[in-house]
């Protein structure tokens, strides 16, 4: 168990910059999730930590030792691959025992450890089978057992759940998290699925186009996204992004957009001083709004009201998403429970001003 540190790590494949000046510390025993769309550089980052790729520049440390150019075998790491990479020509037992055999563990210890790992992942009765006789979920368990059997310093996982069906994925998500908490192994987990990131990670790293955008605990990243990209990448349904501008009137600051005017409380004034009279993006998450008369927002200090027209209603069972026309904008509102609003109805929307986001038009960085 060890701390992993990346310092200004860059990886180029010919002209393509896959990872660009990444600096990051993974704490000892932490479950860190690398989150981003495909091609954002998260898998390349993981592969550099594993030693399968070598950085073009920058350094990687495990604790105090520089491992930048060490081959994987000298790093005491383990990995769970996206396709599991459970070797088809070996039985489950041989698969799990492989890392131990390579590291020349004594025979009785190999047996003990394989037994231990197999029990932990509930695959003890499968040890004699070949991978072709296993289901996808079982293969995944073999891959995880193989990865933890040596008690690695760092456990790497590359989208390990993406090949499972939805139900199994939810189950394995919880199990992997429990397993990691129990083993306290430093874990770096790559995924493009924000739900996995939110539910599993101690901290999330959001990446895009080879760059690190934001690091932090899941709720932090969710509630305080530092850029337009992070704001829209995390959360489902996506955050509403509305073209708007900040205006000043006698009685205070307003956000104005097509079909709505939001009065801001005075405490926004300091933050928005430079943006008065300028265009911005307004971001509001669907669950931070409600329809007056249908439900109320909880724990809200400040709120504002705008008017809209019901355009379309998505009933999800537990929630209802109401697509509302406000001027030229379509704004999604998420309300718990079943809310059968008729299409075309005029509604009053209540907005939670504590959870309003404002982004700079040019830099797309968060102002609030």
């Amino acid at each position, binding site marked *: 168990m060890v701390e992993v540190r990346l310092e200004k790590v860059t990886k180029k494949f010919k002209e393509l910059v896959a990872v660009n000046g990444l600096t990051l510390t993974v704490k000892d025993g932490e479950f860190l999730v690398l989150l981003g769309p495909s091609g954002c550089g998260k898998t390349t980052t993981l592969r550099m930590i594993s030693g399968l790729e070598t950085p073009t520049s920058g350094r990687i440390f495990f604790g105090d030792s520089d491992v930048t150019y060490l081959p994987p075998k000298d790093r005491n790491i383990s990995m769970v691959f996206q*396709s599991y*990479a459970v070797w088809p020509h070996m039985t489950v037992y041989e698969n799990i025992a492989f890392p131990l055999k*390579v590291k020349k563990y004594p025979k009785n210890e190999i047996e003990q450890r394989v037994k231990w790992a197999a029990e932990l992942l509930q695959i003890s009765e499968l040890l004699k089978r*070949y991978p072709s006789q296993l289901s996808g979920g079982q293969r995944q368990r073999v891959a995880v057992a193989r990865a933890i059997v*040596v008690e690695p310093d760092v456990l*790497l996982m590359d989208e390990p759940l993406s090949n499972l069906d939805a139900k199994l994925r939810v189950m394995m998500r919880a199990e992997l998290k429990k397993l990691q908490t129990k083993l306290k192994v430093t874990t770096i987990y790559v995924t493009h699925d924000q739900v996995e990131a939110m539910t599993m990670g101690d901290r999330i790293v959001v990446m895009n186009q080879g760059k690190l955008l934001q690091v932090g605990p899941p709720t932090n990243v969710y509630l305080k996204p530092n850029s337009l990209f992070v704001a829209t990448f995390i959360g489902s349904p996506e955050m509403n992004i509305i073209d708007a501008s900040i205006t000043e009137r006698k009685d205070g600051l307003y956000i104005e957009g097509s079909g709505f005017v939001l009065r801001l409380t005075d405490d926004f004034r300091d933050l928005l001083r430079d943006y008065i009279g300028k265009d911005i993006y307004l971001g509001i998450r669907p669950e931070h709004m409600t329809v007056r008369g249908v439900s109320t927002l909880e724990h809200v200090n400040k709120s504002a009201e705008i008017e809209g027209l019901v355009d379309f209603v998505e009933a999800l069972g537990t929630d209802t998403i109401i697509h509302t026309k406000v001027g030229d904008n379509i704004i999604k509102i998420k309300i718990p429970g079943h809310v059968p609003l008729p299409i075309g109805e005029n509604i009053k929307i209540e907005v939670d001003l504590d959870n309003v986001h404002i982004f700079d038009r040019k830099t797309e960085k968060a102002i609030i």
Partner: protein
Amino acid sequence: MKTKYLPYLLILPAGAYLLFFIGYPLVQAIYLAFTQNGHFTLANFHRAFSNSMFFQALKFTLALAIVIIPIQVVLALVLALIMMNTFKGKDWVLYALIIPLTISDVAGGLIWYTMLSDAGFLNKLLLNLGLISQPIHFFGYQYRTMEFLAIVLEEIWRSTAIVFVIILAGLQMISREYIEAAEVFGAGYWTRLRKIVIPMLKPSIQSALIIRTLFAMQIFGAVWMLAGRDIPVLAGEGYYQLTFIKDYSVASIYALAIAMLSIVLGALYVKFLKAPYLEVGE
């Protein structure tokens, strides 16, 4: 209802054709081998076996296979492993390596005659480099060992490409993650090769071995060009019996000997090289 029979109907012409062209000659060969003027007899076998050429041919056919095939498999494996790397000019190297695939055994024999004849390239080169003072004789009955060597060289030159291509295709089908997984879990290059790559390549190596061995049982053109009947082989003797002696029965016995050898060797390979993980049910 109609579609139920459609696939069979589509396969029928090809199936019938193959059945006829392979079944009929087989039956005919057996008939020719066991009869004379329409009567059952073993005299043909007596005639074939009492001629020392039969066992000579059997001996040389097998000896050539035993010498050539292991060299080819090792060479092909090494080449294929190298070709899994990326490097400059890889396309051209691949082109060069597969050229011999399209060269016939007769042409191969002739090309190697150019290389090895008394006034051929090798002798002239070595003479001019001062490494030898007399040409090395490769051809003629009194130099049969050298003729054997010439055939071995030609076959390694010409038909290693088949083995190479089969093994390369097999290598390319092994997912990279399998090998990377072994790397992550601490296996060095040789361990990965021994424990992951070669075991997973077993089916490809097996088919390469079977194909090469069966073709080796039919070796003819190159031998005929380089050594004639100095080095007798089964297919060559069959050809000789048929076209020069016009003894259809003995020629058929040679053909049957090739068929028997092919079946026995093929079965042996399948039996001894099976991969247990491919046998288990889903």
